[in-house]
């Protein structure tokens, strides 16, 4: 099997998995909300309501497509498309598991291991705002424009603190920007230098502050509660997607869930060892290599599902910020803490070595 064919299969598979997880996230979100509010949640379509996402999808496709008369039609359609493309693009640099081996050749479970991996993530995330801005403006609606402006200023503000928190992680891995290297570094060495459990040398044990900052910024970048001011339905009637209907609205909603999935994957890779799990070396001695690879992929997805659950848990627990509070948190609290964290990490590495 040539490497190009393998990568092509991986890309298609990732696309389908992202869409599938996004679809079932909508179901999971309702079930989690129901659980937290002591309700039952969707249970009519199929056993336990498992066919609910499919029913929702069919509904979205069959609804009437309305393009406002005074809107800019080309940009109106371009908005959700750009949003969807940018959310799907990030998954290219995430290592999903240990490499597979077929006939002496290794196939990395990662579409592209580029040496600027984490910068690529930050770059693509910063482009996500165009989908929202273009869509919000093209709607020719005051509420949509307000939502779009809120979204973009929020995303620009939180990108800085996010980048700063990542710098601390980069210092830990000798300045390598490749996500694959960051994940591999967390699978080797002893935790705190003396706890000898293989595959447990996770960054979160060294960088809890950076993790918290990154998590908060990921919530803000994905426009999730408590930072969902761009769409706050009570004041802005849905914000940037007020005028959207049918599958174009579906793309925006879907994009948000894919964002959540990708953010969870990035958090797992940067702070929770990616596909590494305790005892990965021991398992490698008693099981064939490909078996361990498959288990590592499952572990990776387990971590991702936990963080998706965390996203939902927070959404149904914490109320929305006010806009000035949001800005103050981003610029006056998270930014300084992130900078101090970077300086402390650098000082610690210089003084005590790794």
């Amino acid at each position, binding site marked *: 099997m040539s490497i190009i064919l393998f990568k092509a299969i991986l890309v298609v598979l990732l696309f389908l998995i992202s869409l599938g997880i996004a679809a079932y996230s909508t179901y999971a979100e309702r079930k989690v909300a129901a659980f937290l509010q002591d309700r039952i949640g969707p249970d009519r379509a199929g056993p336990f309501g498992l066919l609910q996402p499919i029913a929702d999808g069919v509904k979205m496709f069959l609804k009437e497509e309305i393009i406002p008369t005074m809107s*800019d039609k080309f*940009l109106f359609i371009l908005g959700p498309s750009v949003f969807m493309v940018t959310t799907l693009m990030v998954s290219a640099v995430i290592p999903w598991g240990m490499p597979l081996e077929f006939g002496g050749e290794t196939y990395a479970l990662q579409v592209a291991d*580029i*040496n*600027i991996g984490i*910068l*690529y993530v*930050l*770059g693509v995330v*910063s*482009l996500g*705002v*165009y989908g929202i*801005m*273009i869509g919000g*403006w093209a709607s020719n609606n005051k509420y949509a*424009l307000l939502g*779009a*402006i809120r979204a*973009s*200023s929020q995303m*620009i503000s939180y*990108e800085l603190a996010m980048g700063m928190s990542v710098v601390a992680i980069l210092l830990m891995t000798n*300045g390598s*920007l490749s996500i694959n290297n960051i994940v591999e570094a967390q699978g080797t060495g002893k935790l705190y230098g003396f706890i000898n459990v293989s595959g447990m040398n996770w960054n979160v044990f060294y960088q809890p502050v950076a993790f918290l900052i990154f998590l908060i910024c990921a919530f803000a970048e994905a426009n999730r509660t408590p930072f969902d001011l761009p769409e706050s339905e009570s004041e802005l009637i849905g914000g940037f997607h007020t005028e959207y209907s049918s599958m174009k609205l579906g793309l925006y909603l879907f994009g948000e869930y894919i964002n959540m999935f990708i953010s969870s994957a990035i958090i797992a890779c940067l702070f929770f060892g990616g596909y590494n799990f305790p005892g990965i070396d021991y398992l490698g001695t008693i099981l064939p290599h490909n078996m361990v690879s498959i288990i590592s992929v499952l572990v990776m997805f387990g971590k991702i599902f936990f963080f998706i659950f965390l996203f939902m848990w927070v959404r149904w627990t914490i109320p929305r910020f006010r806009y000035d509070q949001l800005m103050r948190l981003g610029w006056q609290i998270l930014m300084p803490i992130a900078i101090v964290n970077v300086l402390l990490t650098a000082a610690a590495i210089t003084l005590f070595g790794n």
Partner: protein
Amino acid sequence: MSSQLIFFILAALSIMSALFVVFSKNPIYSVIWLIVCFFSIAGHYIMLNAQFLAIVHIIVYAGAIMVLMLFTVMLLNLNKATEPHKPLLYKLAAMVSGGLMLLVLLASMRSTQLGEYASPAYTESGFVQNVGMVLFTEFLLPFEMTSVLFIAAMIGAVVLAKKEVH
């Protein structure tokens, strides 16, 4: 696909999008074409194996500056109906400065000698580690001076914004 073909596609895209920036009637479309132009230039950087430069170009220009630009254009709500008619003096001044620009360009073009095309060898000087090394050893002083310049600009912006309040 040969790299030459990719280069020609990228070059055509950058020139076309740059032309559309100038010729678009709607300022929003101008901004969007400029973003496309930045992307094709980032593509050129990748072709030269300068990945760091390419991604920083996208993060800084396409990701931050153009968002602010789009922001401003959207809020200004420019359209043809409210655009004021420009007086004759402005048009004359624009024509004269454009002509002078053409003159300078022509003069400089006349005296340049076209060198032989040398195919760029494979180089790793555009990788993050190498750029960082050069930036923090050889070009440390200019690098620090730029950051001072940025701080000055930032403080200036804050001062200007604060004045409005009183």
